[in-house]
């Protein structure tokens, strides 16, 4: 289950709202009340959340692709069953999130169409390929690990349906991270080649995973209003640092080397990482990552290939409803 800093907002429209209502709304947020779908909310709050939750949902759905790539090639039946269950969970997480986004007034069809048209983003991390089995271990361990860091605070987000969806997701998420770590541990305790495969996967995923937390705080736009609305409770850099501090000892346990020669522990015990290549992040977001085109093509194909199923289900439901009406009229 995956989010990244999708916390951009539309503060500019808020000036149009009735100031008294906006103040009352902010007072509810400040009192830690949950906002529910039928409550009054500023248009910018609605728009910000619709975008954040739907992009989070798209990320879950696109996130099935890199892992789905290995279902048929999992090394054992145990691994295959676990991976299948994990990918099914990601789909479920996408559905919980779409349902939460829809409560803000945009239909599922519009949300999905925006994604397929390339108008809505999804997490940059899924534009990287899964080249070996060790990538599946690394995704569970690091990508899901980073997602958990992001999602735990979202369980207390001010918007009720989003917070409730996140609670469900977080409950299911820890299995994902543990299964990933177990794959890594098995590889690291295996042959030289297996350990090298694990190290290679870590080398390729480490920096993209750190980018999942979004741009550094000094350039992160609109973070202030999301914080004021209690959509966001920690800054990108705070979460990134928490993740790094939690992950370094795990890598040491595995006997793997984090691909950052400049990394060192400071006096407070925090692991300080080197400068992140934000140009790569911008390139991937702009559609120029290794797999952007493949991912979009796969989503569009799945949507088009499923069209007849949606049409048949709708036609069958209509036929049944008509028959019931006719029987009732007799």
């Amino acid at each position, binding site marked *: 289950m995956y989010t990244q800093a999708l916390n951009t907002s539309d503060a500019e429209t808020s000036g149009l709202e009735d100031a008294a209502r906006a103040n009352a709304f902010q007072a509810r947020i400040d009192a830690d009340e949950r906002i529910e779908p039928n409550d009054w909310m500023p248009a910018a709050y609605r728009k910000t959340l619709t975008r954040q939750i739907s992009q989070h949902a798209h990320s879950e759905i696109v996130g099935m692709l890199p892992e789905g790539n290995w279902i048929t090639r999992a090394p054992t039946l145990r691994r295959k069953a676990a991976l299948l*269950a994990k990918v099914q*969970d990601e789909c*479920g997480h996408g559905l919980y999130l779409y349902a939460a986004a829809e409560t803000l007034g945009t239909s599922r069809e519009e949300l999905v169409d925006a994604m397929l048209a390339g108008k809505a983003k999804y997490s940059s991390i899924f534009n990287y390929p899964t080249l070996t089995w060790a990538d599946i271990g690394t995704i569970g361990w690091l990508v899901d690990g980073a997602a958990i860091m992001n999602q735990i605070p979202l369980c207390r987000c001010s918007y009720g349906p989003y917070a409730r969806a996140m609670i*469900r997701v977080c409950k*299911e998420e820890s299995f994902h991270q543990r299964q990933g770590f177990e794959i890594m541990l098995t590889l690291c305790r295996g042959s030289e080649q297996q350990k090298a495969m694990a190290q290679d996967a870590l080398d390729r995923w480490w920096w993209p995973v750190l980018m999942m937390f979004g741009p550094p705080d000094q350039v992160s736009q609109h973070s202030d209003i999301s914080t004021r609305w209690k959509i966001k409770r920690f800054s990108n850099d705070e979460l990134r640092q928490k993740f790094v501090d939690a992950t370094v000892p795990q890598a040491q346990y595995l006997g793997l080397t984090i691909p950052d020669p400049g990394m060192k522990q400071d006096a407070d015990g925090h692991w300080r990482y080197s400068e992140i290549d934000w140009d790569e992040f911008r390139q991937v977001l702009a559609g120029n990552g290794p797999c952007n085109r493949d991912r979009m093509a796969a989503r569009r194909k799945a949507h088009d290939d499923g*069209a007849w199923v949606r049409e048949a289900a709708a036609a069958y*439901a209509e036929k049944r409803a008509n028959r019931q009406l006719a029987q009732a009229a007799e």
Partner: protein
Amino acid sequence: MATPNTPLWEVFIRSRNGLAHKHCGSLHAADATMALQAARDVYTRRGEGLSIWVVPSNAITASDPSDKGMLFEPAESKIYRHPTFYDVPDEVGHM
């Protein structure tokens, strides 16, 4: 070509015998049978339920949040509806 929007259903699950069905989320499905099957897959992957209800979302009538004060204030001011309002001497024991 636009396919019509697939209807929305609210899902209620009874987690254990003796407990009530509880709302757990919503989903889209063309009809009630498919809604039940989808609810099984989406909301009970880890043995969360013994029974599922699906209800068309548009069949639910909800109270208006702006009526909250009018609807619920009367209950708040009637403290004599709660057992702690009444004094029972300690000697009487648990009641």
